[in-house]
C-alpha cells in the first residue's frame, strides 16, 4: 500500500511538473507583425510603386516586363499576382511572380486600385500570399 501511494505521488508530481513546463513553453510569445498585415503592406506598396513608376501604364499598353521586374524584387517568401481590368471588366494584363502558383489560404491578401491611362479607367487588382513552406 505504501509503495502504491509513493508511486501515485511521483506520478502526480511528474504530471504537475510536465503541465507547468507545457504552460511556460506556450507563453514564450514574441509579438510580431501578423502575416496578413505584412502581406497587405507589401501588396499596397507594390501597387504604389507600379503606379508611380509607370509600370501599370506600360502593362496596359502590352509591356508587362516592368510589372514582372517589380514582382521579382519583392521578398522571396512572398508571392504576388497582378491583374489589370478595363472599365468593362475585361482582363487587359495579368502576371504572377515567377516560381509562384496561385494557392488559396487564409493568409492571402487582395487589394484593388484605380488607374487612369489614355483617358480610360482601369482597375489594378493584386493578390499576395506566402510561398508554401515559408511560414
Amino acid at each position, binding site marked *: 500500500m505504501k509503495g502504491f501511494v509513493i508511486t501515485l505521488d511521483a506520478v502526480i508530481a511528474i504530471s*504537475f511538473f510536465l503541465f507547468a513546463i507545457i504552460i511556460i513553453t506556450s507563453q514564450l510569445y514574441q509579438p510580431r507583425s*501578423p502575416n496578413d*498585415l505584412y502581406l497587405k503592406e507589401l501588396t499596397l506598396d507594390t501597387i504604389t510603386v507600379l503606379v508611380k513608376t509607370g509600370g501599370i501604364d506600360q502593362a496596359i499598353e502590352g509591356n508587362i516586363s516592368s510589372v514582372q521586374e517589380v514582382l521579382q524584387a519583392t521578398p522571396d517568401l512572398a508571392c504576388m499576382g497582378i491583374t489589370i481590368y478595363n472599365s468593362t471588366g475585361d482582363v487587359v494584363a495579368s502576371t504572377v511572380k515567377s516560381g509562384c502558383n496561385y494557392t488559396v489560404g487564409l493568409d492571402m491578401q487582395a487589394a*484593388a*486600385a484605380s488607374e487612369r491611362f489614355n483617358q480610360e479607367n482601369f482597375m489594378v487588382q493584386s493578390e499576395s500570399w506566402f510561398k508554401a513552406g515559408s511560414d
Partner: protein
Amino acid sequence: MRGFVITLLAVSLVLILVMLSMSLSDTQLSTDRAIKDPLPLMYGAFLLDDVGHNLNSIVGPGMVFSETNSSTGISVADTLSGYNYTPAIVGYGAFLSDEIAPQTASSITTNLTNLTNGVTSLNMDGNYAYSNDHNQNVSIFTKAGGTGASAYFINATVTAVRTNVTPMAFTNGTMNVTIDITDINGTYMQSGSVSPDQQNTLVLYYSGASLTITVGPQGGNSGSLLMQALGTNAAVSWAAILPPLNSSDRIGYAYNATIDYAQGAVEKRCAIGE
C-alpha cells in the same frame, strides 16, 4: 489530513497556473488585435491617396511642395485652356463606386460636383487657395489676408506671334518677380521687385489675343497671382516662395470635392487629396 493539505496545495497551484495562462493568452490576443486593427485603415488611406492621384491626373495641376525652416515653396504647372474634363471626372466617380468599391468590399461615394463646372479649385497647405477657371482661362493663387510671398518665378508658353507688350513696372518692393515668356517670337523676360499691395501687371498681346500676368492684391488679399489668357491658350508654370507653415498646417493640397469611404467599421469622409 497531511495528504489532503498537500493535494489542496497542488490543486491550488495548478489553478493559479491555469489562470496565469489564460491571462497571458488574452494579452497575446489583445496584442494581435492591436497590431491588426490598422489593416482596414491602411487600405482606406491607400485608396484615398490613389483617388487623389488619379483625380489630379484628370484635372491637374502638377504640383510640387517644399518646405524649409524659413520658407515654403509651391510650384504649379497648369494650362490656361478651355478643356472640358467633366465627362472624365463623372466617369471616374462612377468607376470608383461601381467597380472599385465592390472589389474591395467597401462603399465609395464621391461628390465631384464642384469640379464639373470647368473650375478646378483646391486648397494648398491649409490656407492658400488656387483656382483655374477653364471657362475664362484664368487662374488665381491667393490667401485670405495675403500670401506673404517673397518671390514669384513665372513661366508661360504661348503658341502665337507677339505683337505688343505692356511690361510690368518694377517699384523696388518686397516681392521679387521673375517672368519668362516663350512664344513664337522667342523669349520675353522680366525680373525685378514690386510691392505686394499694388497691382503689377504684364500684358503680352498677340493677334486678337493676350496673356495677362498680375501680381498684387486679388479680392483684397495682397501678394496674389492672377494669370489670364484671352483668345489663346497658354501653358503656365510658376513657383512661389512663401512664409514657413504654421505648426498646425500640413504641406499638401485638397480639391474642392469630397469622398466618403466606408469598409466595415472604418468610415472616412474628407476632401479628395487631403
